[in-house]
């Protein structure tokens, strides 16, 4: 199966960024906007609350003050960023955010190990748990930073399926891509928009004269609010500017008399209110997404940043503390942009140097994501590539394929299309993610490079041929012969010390297994375990143990079969691989069957099939054949026939299924159901079987790894062939014809 080549599977390497879970603290300048807090209290009556308004409308501050004064409800907080476009990262943080406010609700929820399983496993589990709890609010701030893709889709799914006890609150600059219209009609939606978030004169006075103590005349406050149209960030900028001004009335009048934009007019004044050292800190650290004293010292080559940051955070709401210890901060995005404009104006071209220093600081501390990003922004592409080469295997084994792909996408196209290391990483990531065409495209580009050695590639190989052979051997895509040829070459070429050596031996072992060359398979699986175990390559280890158990079963060695299956299951459980390593469930299922525990065996095999529907076709067919055999033994003939039909369809899709077809035929003494039915194709039979259940077409597509459209056209074709016009009739007719 695809995932098995994932080199490292340590779940301990998951990157939890605690600063994202830190709700904004209330500070001296924060005003509590009572009318809006009251509106937000109604969140508990609806499924979804949306604060949709432009930058600087005070969304984050409002949500933070509401969370502060909310006494009756647990309110979980998560600030989203671009990294959350990786669903594994996103759900890791959501689970942790909820755990912090209601530990019981997520006690049994396992953090995600693979992007493919996020919605199926983590989100469903989470919803089941939350449904049994009291009300809980989940605030996702900066929702606009999620782009279209599986992470954002998983949030939409969450909201659609949320139990009445879960209330999601989104802070966003742009309209979220959710079916708001429907929810509005059903009364499931609470919305706060820019016009509601604009400051009233009273609120502006509370900020300017109350919190900031500016002592402005009421007509000056009114004039500012009118000129700035109540835009909270603008009013606050004006307040900060006015702090250093003696004749405030004159200042307000002169501002009122220009047509300059407030952000343009005021940034100089805001900066001028500080000493030169603080100004320099604000300007130069504006290139950072998150800042600490130590990081700023490195970027500015200074030594007093921690103190300056603490002081600045007390008097400037645009610098937000990200923890209670006063260590990490971030600038309000809008303010950071203004500072960057000013930085470029005052010190043109310096950002490259600053990014380089930021890269060095992050790299030396093991902050891989940030190191890569800053190196890329500095144009130091060689450095960025080196960091990626050192980190991608570990990151990918934690299931974070999307993260690694985003790193590769951060290079200019002319580089990412010509650099062998980057292309190779793209090929591995696409293969692991099941994106066959993208993987093939990257491999083709690699071949066209005619790259010949030196320096070693990102996988520790000195030769492109060795890397490609391993890649092609590990991902058979239903072609055992080709996989075996490549795996043989890989084992010959990949040097013993290379981190992909165990992937090469595993590839050869599986190719042998699917050709019934059991002695050779056993030898190579054994070598894989020897290499992968000490190197903590848990996925390869558990997979190799599982296959060895299957081999022992075929030889009738019951004792070895059972202990190897147990060993595989232990490794999978310990390292969070149960939702990835489908072959482990096959081995466990067959061992249970040998023990006579048929019900437990069927449960394991069902799980194997579910997991492997997203894996490689050969593994899926194997699991289905085993499942069918045990189902038949349990006299569940209808289910057995469906499993046989799906196995046959899967094998049909393989260019070279090895000995799988023979194994299937050995199992099936009677003609396959498609010979006696109303001419349904095997794939249609599988879909018909799923139509019997309660899944929607979209969910069936997800289960079968087909697009919604494909499932829909199968369904239409089933209706036509059976002469029916509804799902219910199709199932009835299927039962009548003995298809179900």
């Amino acid at each position, binding site marked *: 199966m695809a995932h098995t080549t994932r080199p490292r599977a340590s779940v301990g390497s998951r990157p939890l960024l605690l600063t994202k879970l830190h709700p904004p603290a209330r500070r001296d300048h924060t005003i509590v906007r009572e009318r809006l807090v009251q509106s937000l209290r109604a969140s508990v009556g609806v499924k979804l609350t949306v604060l949709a308004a432009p930058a600087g409308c005070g969304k984050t501050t409002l949500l933070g003050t509401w969370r502060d004064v909310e006494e009756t409800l647990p309110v979980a907080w998560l600030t989203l960023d671009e990294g959350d476009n990786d669903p594994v990262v996103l759900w890791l943080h959501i689970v942790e955010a909820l755990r912090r406010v209601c530990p019981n609700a997520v006690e049994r929820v396992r953090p995600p190990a693979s992007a493919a399983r996020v919605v199926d496993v983590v989100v469903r589990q989470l919803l089941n748990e939350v449904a049994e709890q009291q009300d809980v609010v989940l605030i996702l701030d900066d929702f606009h930073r999620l782009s279209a893709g599986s992470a954002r889709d998983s949030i939409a799914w969450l909201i659609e399926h949320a139990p009445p006890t879960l209330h999601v609150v989104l802070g966003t600059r742009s309209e979220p891509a959710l079916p708001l219209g429907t929810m509005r009609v059903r009364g499931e939606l609470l919305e706060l928009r820019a016009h509601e978030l604009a400051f009233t004169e009273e609120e502006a006075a509370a900020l300017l004269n109350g919190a900031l103590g500016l002592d402005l005349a009421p007509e000056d406050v009114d004039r500012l609010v009118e000129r700035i149209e109540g835009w909270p960030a603008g009013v606050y900028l004006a307040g900060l500017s006015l702090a250093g001004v003696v004749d405030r009335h004159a200042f307000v009048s002169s501002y009122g008399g220009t047509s300059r934009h407030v952000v343009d007019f005021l940034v100089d004044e805001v900066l001028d209110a500080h000493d030169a050292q603080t100004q320099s800190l604000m300007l130069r650290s504006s290139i950072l997404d998150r800042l600490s004293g130590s990081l700023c010292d490195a970027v500015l080559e200074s030594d007093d940043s921690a103190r300056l940051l603490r002081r600045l955070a007390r008097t400037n709401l645009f610098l937000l503390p990200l923890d209670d210890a006063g260590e990490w901060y971030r600038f309000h995005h809008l303010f950071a942009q203004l500072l960057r404009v*000013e930085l470029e104006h005052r010190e043109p071209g310096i950002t490259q140097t600053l990014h380089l220093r930021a890269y060095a600081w992050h790299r030396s501390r093991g902050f891989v994501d940030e190191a890569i990003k800053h190196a890329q922004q500095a144009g130091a592409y060689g450095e960025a590539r080196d960091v990626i080469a050192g980190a991608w295997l570990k990151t990918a084994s934690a299931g974070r394929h999307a993260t690694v792909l985003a790193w590769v996408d951060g290079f200019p196209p002319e580089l990412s299309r010509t650099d062998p290391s980057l292309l190779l990483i793209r090929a591995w990531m696409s293969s692991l993610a099941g994106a066959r065409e993208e993987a093939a495209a990257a491999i083709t580009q690699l071949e066209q490079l005619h790259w010949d050695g030196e320096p070693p590639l990102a996988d520790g190989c000195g030769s492109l041929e060795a890397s490609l052979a391993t890649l092609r051997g590990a991902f058979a895509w239903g072609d055992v012969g080709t996989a075996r040829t490549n795996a043989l070459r890989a084992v010959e070429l990949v040097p013993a010390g290379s981190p992909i050596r165990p992937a090469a031996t595993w590839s050869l072992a599986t190719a042998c297994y699917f050709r019934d060359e059991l002695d050779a398979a056993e030898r190579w699986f054994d070598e894989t375990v020897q290499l992968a175990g000490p190197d903590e390559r848990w996925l390869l280890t558990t997979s190799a143990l599982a296959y060895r158990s299957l081999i022992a079963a075929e030889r009738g060695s019951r004792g070895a079969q059972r202990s190897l299956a147990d060993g595989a299951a232990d490794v999978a459980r310990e390292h969070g691989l149960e939702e990835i390593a489908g072959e482990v469930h096959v081995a466990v299922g067959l061992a249970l069957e040998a023990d006579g525990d048929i019900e437990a065996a069927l449960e394991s095999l069902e799980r194997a099939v579910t997991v492997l529907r997203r894996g490689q076709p050969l593994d899926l067919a194997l699991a289905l054949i085993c499942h069918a055999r045990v189902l038949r033994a349990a006299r569940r003939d209808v289910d057995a026939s469906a499993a046989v039909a799906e196995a046959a369809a899967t094998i049909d899709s393989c260019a070279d299924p090895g000995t799988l077809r023979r194994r299937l035929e050995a199992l099936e003494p009677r003609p396959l159901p498609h010979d006696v039915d109303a001419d349904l194709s095997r794939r249609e039979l599988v879909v018909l079987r799923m139509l019997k259940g309660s899944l929607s077409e979209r969910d069936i597509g997800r289960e079968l790894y087909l697009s919604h459209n494909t499932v829909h056209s199968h369904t239409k074709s089933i209706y036509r062939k059976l002469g029916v016009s509804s799902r219910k009739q199709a199932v009835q007719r299927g039962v009548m014809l003995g298809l179900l």
Partner: protein
Amino acid sequence: MESRATRGGTYRLVVRGELDDRFAYLFNGMELERIAGTTVLSGDVVDQAQLHGYIARVEELGLELVSISQTAEHVT
């Protein structure tokens, strides 16, 4: 090969409020003009991704976007 996503052109973005020339830095060298209480950014955009980047920049600054228009299409 020319596709919708790779099509560039000359664009004109109008935002409310007058901005100093130094803001052109955020818009990758587009020309910046102040006209009657608005700022007009105009220049070449290589593809749709860059155009959306500029719109995001406007959004990040909390600026009010008045209009966007294409004044010429690039033929490659």
